[in-house]
Structures are given as structure tokens and as C-alpha cells.
């Protein structure tokens, strides 16, 4: 029976080690807990959220913080796994006692953490998950979406595409929630805005599909007027590469949400295909406003790279958190939420507001087409047109109707 004794000694020492594990925060600060994926392909986006956030927080703290308190944050890597993400969020709330939670690119985690935030009454800022359900069907008082969602992206694209003369559309994308949601959103809204539009076919591939050529040959054979590609993550780049190699980009115009965004174009350098339509919430070279230029310079000095759309999200989230507490006048969650509702802050892309009814940040969308630019070693988005939030965002009534269901 000695083994029982050893077993308990061992267990106790492990538990002990765990109990003395120190808090990640100093006392007397505003604590922000970040749960996000910092492993795998998603990291290309989440790192920018974090760096943008860091940039703003450092600036705020340098000015003395908020209400005399510094903003402190800590990160947890959930590895794109909702169960781990959820247990980390619980750790942050229950053990670290964070005031605010933010994070995650994974919609599954975002929804799970959102549900937890609702129960624990902790404000939760969703930074890069794009599920429409976050503020729609599963929305509640404590969740804020600092990023567009699939419905918004789809509507914005539909608004821009409806002006084009194409009739026969082909739909293709990553066979998972994000891909289908964005494709459905575009198609439904496109049909609403231009009743002549028809879908002549669709193809779906598994997430992380490395070779798109078979799908592209299938599309080429069908000869549609226009193709909507609903991919995310590394699929964006992979598809553009395949589109170039097979000559698809010269034959049939196609659209990819975030296809004109830095995250997609920069890795490909000069080899990215020209003439790809895309929408993005942020382009570091457009609009050429002083505010945008200042942000880009700041970001570039700090991290030696250009900011992506996710950097803007992180940057603005930090500012909203700081301003929210400032306006509330105390570190009180209910007052904080009240303060944020309807708050408008200046940003690199102009004034941004958090809508009071559904806690959605009202972001502009830029519709453009990829082209070469001698100033950069990668392609940029040209012929940019701004789709302002009021032209495409679902109305409060529409969103609240989803919540009732």
C-alpha cells in the first residue's frame, strides 16, 4: 500500500505547485484577460490583434492609465480548441479575477466564452471571430463584437457586387461554418438587391485543403460570370496561388472576402494574382488620412511591419476599454457597459461607434480589386470604394429579432 502513499504525496506536491502559482497581475490595476489562438495558421491574424492592443495600452498607460490605474493584460493560448479556451477563460475569470475578457479568432470558443461571460457577468470583447451568432442569436448584454461578422461582410460585398453586371454566379468555399455563412450572406443579399442573379453551382472543400486545382477546373468548365470564394485563413493565399497557376484570375473574375487585404496579399509578394475583388475593414494605405498614417507609422516603428485589419481591432478595443472605464468613472462592470453603449471614438479609419442595441462596432468596409503598386513589394487594393456602415449593417430590429428566436 506504499504506492497509495506515494501517489498521494505526488498528487499533493503537484497540487501544491499549482496553488502557489502566482497571479499574472499586480494589484490595483484594470485587468484584461485575452484568450486567443497563438498556434497554427490563425496566428497570422491574432498576433496583430495582440500587437495593436499592446500599442494602444502602452500609450494609455504612459499617460497615467485610466482612473489612476494602469491597464494590465495577460494572454492564454487556446490552440484553436474551444474546450481549452473555455477552461482558460474560466481560469482568467475565477482565479485571476479579470475585469474584462477579450479575444479569440475561433467562433466556437467565442460562443462558448460568450456564454460564460453572460453567466459570470464579465464584459467580453470578441476580437476576430466572425460568427454572426455572437451578437445575433446568442447575443447578450455582456458581449461586444469589435469586428465585422459574416452577415455584415456578406451584405457589404453584396452592396458592391450588385452594381456589377454579372448574372451567373458560382459559389465555392471552405466547408465549415465561416465559409457557408459568408457565402449564404452574400448570395441572399445579392439576390435581394439584384433579382436577376442566379447561382449556377457550388463546390466546397475541406478546411485546410492544400490543392485547389481540381475545384478550379470544375469551375472553369462550368463557365460562370463570376465566382464567390468563401475561404478564410491560409485558404485565402492558397486559393489565390492556385488561381494564378491555373489562369483562373485572367479568365473569370472572382471575389474573396479579405482578398484585397494585407494578410492575404503580403505573403505572396509580387506573385499574387491581379484583378481579384475583395472587401476589407482596414487598409493601411487607404484612406490616406493623417490619423491612418499616424497609426501605421506607430505600428511600423514598434513591430517593423504593416498593420493588418486585425491590428486595428486590437488597437480600438484597448481604447474602447480605456474610454469605457473613464466614462463610467469607476471600475464597475455595469457602469462600464452602460458607458460603452453608443460610444464613438476617433480611429485611423474615422469615427467608430459601438451600437447601443447590439454592441456591434460599426466598421466601414473597403471594396477593391488587387493591383500592383511600385511603392510596395506586394500587391495592394486599388479602385477602393468605401461602403459605409449605414449602407450595409443589419438594422437593430433585424438583430434583436434573431435574439428572440
Amino acid at each position, binding site marked *: 500500500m506504499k504506492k497509495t502513499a506515494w*501517489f498521494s504525496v505526488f498528487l499533493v506536491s503537484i497540487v501544491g505547485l499549482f496553488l502557489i*502559482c502566482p497571479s499574472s497581475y499586480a494589484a490595483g490595476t484594470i485587468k484584461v484577460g485575452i484568450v486567443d489562438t497563438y498556434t497554427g495558421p490563425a496566428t497570422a491574424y491574432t498576433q496583430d490583434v495582440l500587437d495593436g492592443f499592446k500599442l494602444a495600452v502602452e500609450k494609455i498607460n504612459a499617460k497615467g492609465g485610466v482612473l489612476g490605474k494602469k491597464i494590465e493584460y495577460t494572454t492564454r493560448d487556446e490552440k484553436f480548441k*474551444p474546450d481549452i479556451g473555455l477552461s482558460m477563460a474560466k481560469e482568467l475569470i475565477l482565479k485571476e479575477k479579470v475585469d474584462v475578457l477579450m479575444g479569440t479568432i475561433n467562433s466556437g470558443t467565442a460562443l462558448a466564452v460568450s*456564454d460564460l461571460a*453572460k453567466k459570470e457577468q464579465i464584459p467580453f470583447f470578441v476580437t476576430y471571430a466572425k460568427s454572426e451568432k455572437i451578437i445575433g442569436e*446568442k447575443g447578450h448584454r455582456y458581449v461586444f463584437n469589435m469586428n465585422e461578422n459574416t452577415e455584415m461582410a456578406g451584405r457589404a460585398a453584396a452592396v458592391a457586387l450588385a452594381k456589377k453586371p454579372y448574372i451567373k454566379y458560382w459559389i465555392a468555399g471552405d466547408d465549415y*461554418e465561416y465559409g457557408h455563412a459568408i457565402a449564404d450572406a452574400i448570395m441572399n443579399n445579392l439576390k435581394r438587391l439584384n433579382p436577376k442573379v442566379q447561382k449556377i453551382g457550388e463546390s466546397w472543400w475541406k478546411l485546410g485543403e492544400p490543392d485547389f486545382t481540381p475545384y478550379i477546373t470544375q469551375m472553369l468548365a462550368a463557365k460562370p460570370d463570376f465566382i464567390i470564394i468563401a475561404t478564410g485563413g491560409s485558404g485565402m493565399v492558397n486559393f489565390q496561388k492556385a488561381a494564378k497557376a491555373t489562369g483562373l484570375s485572367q479568365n473569370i473574375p472572382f471575389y474573396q472576402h479579405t482578398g484585397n487585404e494585407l494578410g492575404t496579399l503580403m505573403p505572396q509578394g509580387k506573385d499574387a494574382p491581379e484583378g481579384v475583388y475583395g472587401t476589407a475593414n482596414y487598409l493601411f494605405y487607404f484612406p490616406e488620412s493623417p490619423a491612418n498614417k499616424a497609426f501605421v507609422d506607430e505600428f511600423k516603428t514598434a513591430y517593423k511591419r504593416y498593420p493588418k485589419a486585425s491590428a486595428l481591432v486590437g488597437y480600438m478595443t484597448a481604447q474602447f476599454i480605456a474610454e469605457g472605464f473613464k466614462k463610467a468613472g469607476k471600475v464597475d462592470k455595469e457602469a462600464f457597459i452602460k458607458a460603452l453603449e453608443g460610444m464613438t471614438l476617433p480611429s485611423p479609419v474615422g469615427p467608430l461607434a459601438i451600437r447601443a442595441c447590439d454592441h456591434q462596432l460599426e466598421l466601414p468596409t473597403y471594396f477593391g480589386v488587387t493591383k500592383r503598386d511600385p511603392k510596395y513589394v506586394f500587391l495592394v487594393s486599388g479602385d477602393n470604394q468605401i461602403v459605409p456602415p449605414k449602407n450595409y449593417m443589419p438594422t437593430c430590429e433585424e438583430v434583436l429579432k434573431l435574439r428572440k428566436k
Partner: protein
Amino acid sequence: MVTKGRIGAYAGIIFLLALPLFFPRFYVYIASLILLYGLLATSLNFVLGFGGIYQFHHCVFYGAGAYGAALMLTKTGFSPWVGFIVGPLVAALLSLILGLICIRLSKLYFGMLQISLGSLVWAVIYRWYSLTGGDDGIHGISVPDMIASANGAYYFALIVTGLSFFIIFKILKSPFGSVLQGIRDNPIRSEMIGVNVKRHQLAALVISGFFAGVAGVLFVVVDTTVFPDMLFWTLSMEVMIMCLLGGWFTFMGPILGAALIVLLRTFISTYTVYWALFLGIVLMIIIFFLPNGVLGYFQEKFRPKKLVKG
């Protein structure tokens, strides 16, 4: 000696029962997680360490149990308690079906066929959006009030895992358990003493699947969500690691392994985002130096008479 062991066991039970009184909520939550992963690992070890079956994709049954219960809870009007029973039954049924297909093969081939079949189940859950919510999963599942709080969930997990451990332990000590361990050591010999090896293995798989399903139900109760990731092969690897880490020829080993993994994950991740790196290194060291796992090592060290060679 026996009485000392008894006292230790009673002390352990009292500690577990009193845990929510002394520890903050987070630790109660972690304790519940350890219990449920411990059950999952033990259910795997029932066939892996005691049955010698290379069940590579055990989490399929864990996920099936969780989804079974979650769907009963959210899509039907039955009492939640019915859902909690249906979950494990679904897992056991799935285990029977997969077992019937795979049982003809042995060792690595069994494991790989199981991974393919499991991946199919995963793909179905991942794709069947209207039923399962696709990759977003199902969230905010409401469980009965009695077990909805952290402490309630903990006690529920404690009672259920305690009962499950007791049953699994009983089975291992029964003639069936003896035969199963015989099959692990030597299937041909087992046939030759009159044991229908495949049929016993199949029964073991079903029992194991059932308890994996129970663990799945506990996850639903503790975390009130389900995700397709619960059926992904990497989680199965982690559970296998729990078994080997603790000691796969021991009963308590997998529970210890589960505790180690859950604690290490929580503990290291508060320090660094590179927790997988450290976890990997710790695992490598343990596998390298303690081939029989932590508990297996202690057992060897302190009972030299029964040392198992080669």
C-alpha cells in the same frame, strides 16, 4: 499495511468531498475537469492497458456521449436526466458498431482503421450543421439547477466518476477482467484456454465506450457546451498520453495522468504561450525515463518482488 491504505483512501474521499468548502471556485472547476478526464482516460485504459487493444480514437465515444446528451437536452423535451443516460448509450452503441468493423484487425491496424472510422464520425458531426451546429458547437446547454452551479457540477462529477471507477474496478477484478488481461498478454493463449477473444474484446470496447460517453456527459454538465473538437484525433492522443504518463498497467495511473496533464496545462499556460513546447518536453522526459509511467515506476520501485521484466 492494509489499514494504512484504507485510512489513506478514506482521507482521500473526505478530501474530495470537502474540497469545495476550502477551495475557491476555480479549483473546484479544475477538480471537476480532472475527474472527467480521469474517467475518460480510465475508460480508455480499460481497453488499452488492460485489454491490449490499440484504441487510437477513443474520443469519438466521448464526443458521441456528449453530443447524445447535448442533443437530447436541447432538441427534445425529455427530462435532462434521460439525456444523461442516452448519451452513454449512444456512445456504447457507436462503440459496438465501430468495434464490429475493427475487431478483425489487431494492434496498429486496428488503431488506424479506428482513426479512419472515427474521422468519418467527426466529419459527420462537423458537417451536419442543422443538427449539431457544425464547428461552432452547441452552447449554453441548460442543465438541472441542482447541478448547474460549480459545486453542484463538481459533486455530480464526483459521484458519477466515483461510481464509474468503482464499477470499472469491479469489472477488472472479475473473471471478465482476468480474461481481458489475459487477452492483453497473449491472445493466442487465451483462445487456447477456451476464450472467445474477439467477443470478449468487443464487450470490453462497448463497456469502455459507455464510460467514455459518461465522461462526455460530465463535460456537458461541467462546461455546458459541446464541440466537434471533442472528436478530433489530437484529443485522443492526449488521452492516450494521460494513460501512459500515469502508468497504463495500473488502475490509478490514468487518473494521475489526467490530473498531471490538466494541471500542467493550466499551470504552464499562465506563464507562457508556448505551453505545448513545455508539455511536449515534460512528456518526452517522462516517456524516456519512466517507460511504465509515473505510477508504474513507483510500483516497480517499491515492489521489487513482482518486478516485471521484458
